[in-house]
């Protein structure tokens, strides 16, 4: 019984260690992108020193284990919630003109998941992978709408003004970011 209890407590220690290490490390990518409070930068610098004490192998093991059981799942809203990012398709042909469409998703849950996909697309840094992803999305749009000869994938931010700016009359607006243009070969 005593051995069992010691083993269980060891498991708990390992478990807590992995969750702490992974999730405290998880805040670092935000540092470069967002404006943090001065006090936060100092706190993070201390934490960074603590996490630097662990070898890459320990960090790797901890991240692998935490990916199973210990991701907090709250990262999207921390430290500051980002602007909404979305993708639209501009479909064109001579007879039907221009049509702006959403991805072909039907369920509410599917739409929530599509939002995650857009945000993940935004985060992809490798341009080749991003181009492949855009091509895949446009191919699917073409399968759903075969009569169109040109399909553009447009990414944009939905900028929400601050409360003060809103009171002064500013309103939310779409800010175009990237456009991927595809001309469909009529005789593939």
């Amino acid at each position, binding site marked *: 019984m005593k051995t069992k*209890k010691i083993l269980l407590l060891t498991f708990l220690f390992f478990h*807590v260690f992995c969750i702490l290490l992974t999730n405290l490390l998880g805040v670092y990518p935000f540092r470069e992108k967002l404006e943090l409070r001065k006090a*936060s930068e100092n706190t993070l610098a201390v934490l960074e020193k603590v996490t630097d004490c662990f070898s890459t192998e320990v960090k790797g093991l901890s991240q692998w284990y935490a990916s199973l059981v210990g991701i907090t799942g709250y990262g999207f809203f921390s430290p500051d919630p980002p602007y909404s990012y979305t993708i639209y398709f501009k479909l064109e042909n001579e007879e039907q003109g221009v049509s702006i469409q959403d991805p072909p*998703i039907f*369920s509410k849950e599917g739409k929530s*998941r*599509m939002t*995650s996909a857009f945000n993940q697309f935004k985060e992809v840094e490798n341009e080749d992978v991003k181009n492949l*992803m855009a091509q895949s999305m446009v191919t699917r749009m073409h399968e759903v709408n075969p009569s169109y000869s040109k399909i553009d994938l447009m990414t944009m931010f939905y900028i929400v003004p601050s409360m003060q700016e809103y009171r002064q009359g500013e309103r*939310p607006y779409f800010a175009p970011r990237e456009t991927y243009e595809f001309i469909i070969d009529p005789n593939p």
Partner: protein
Amino acid sequence: MKTSFFKSVDQFFFKVDNNLNLAFFRIGTALIAMFILISQYPDLLEIYGQYGYLRADIVELPLLSFQPRLSWMTDFLAGHGFSEFMSLKVVFGLYLSFLFLLGIGIFPTLTALLCLFLQISFMNSGQYYIYGVDYFILAGLFYCILFPVGRQLSLNILGKARKKESMIFFTRVLQIHLCLVYFISGFDKGLGYDWWNGEAIWTTMMGLNFKSVDVSFLADYPFIPKAIGWSVLLIEIGYPFFIFWKKTKYVWLSITILMHVGIGIFLGLYYFAAMMIVFNMAAFGGELLKRSFGKGKTLNLIKSIGIKFFIRRTESDKNASIWI
């Protein structure tokens, strides 16, 4: 002194408990995972299909060869004459069946293991589409494998005289997990400016993706989002301290659950909210669950429903004879 310290550690982690909360955790996790799965069904091919919106070969590009994915199963079934949609439906049906078995408590450890494998496969094959709730389902299934979740409210124990009690250790793991989740989340939020000045609440609720209610009037009352932002920080950072203190335990549990109800209503993240409520109730609402569904109470409830049903039937029979 030393002995009393070890005694209190022993008491804190290893006292015997009826663990009804773990059964609630098992049922809650299985039910929510089932709802999430069913709600995705109309878009199964678009999200997880080989030729979906994001093609499987692109999605699976960063996966290592040993990481489970849906194409392992769909390719196998395709070799036996199944179409892609049909084989996805088979995997979907299998996952749903295992979740159902887990929910009713048939071989809970084995079914949780199979569910975990399928959950990882779905997450890997739809890795661009996952969000917070998927990680909590994953953690929930992982705990269902390790914890004695099948000792109460389970068909697995029907007809067998099995021990219902076990150590409270497993509940403690859940509690510590939640404390870490909330504390780290609150800590992360506190690093920036937006949760302190209310802009986080404003931006999120006015954003395109989570806009389910028009809250533009909040711009004229900035103290409301500011107060909500500060409350969220207080609830999350204060969680590990106030939830373990007897006097504030139920107050903190209630406001945390209310916060998740708010997230469900205003951001439309119903499943995420439900899963967090299940985690909270299982970790800290054990006493409440015992009072509601404890020894004999479920049976009494079923009996009383049975009696009411019987009375209603006899009354309707009487009415029927009058009308005839």
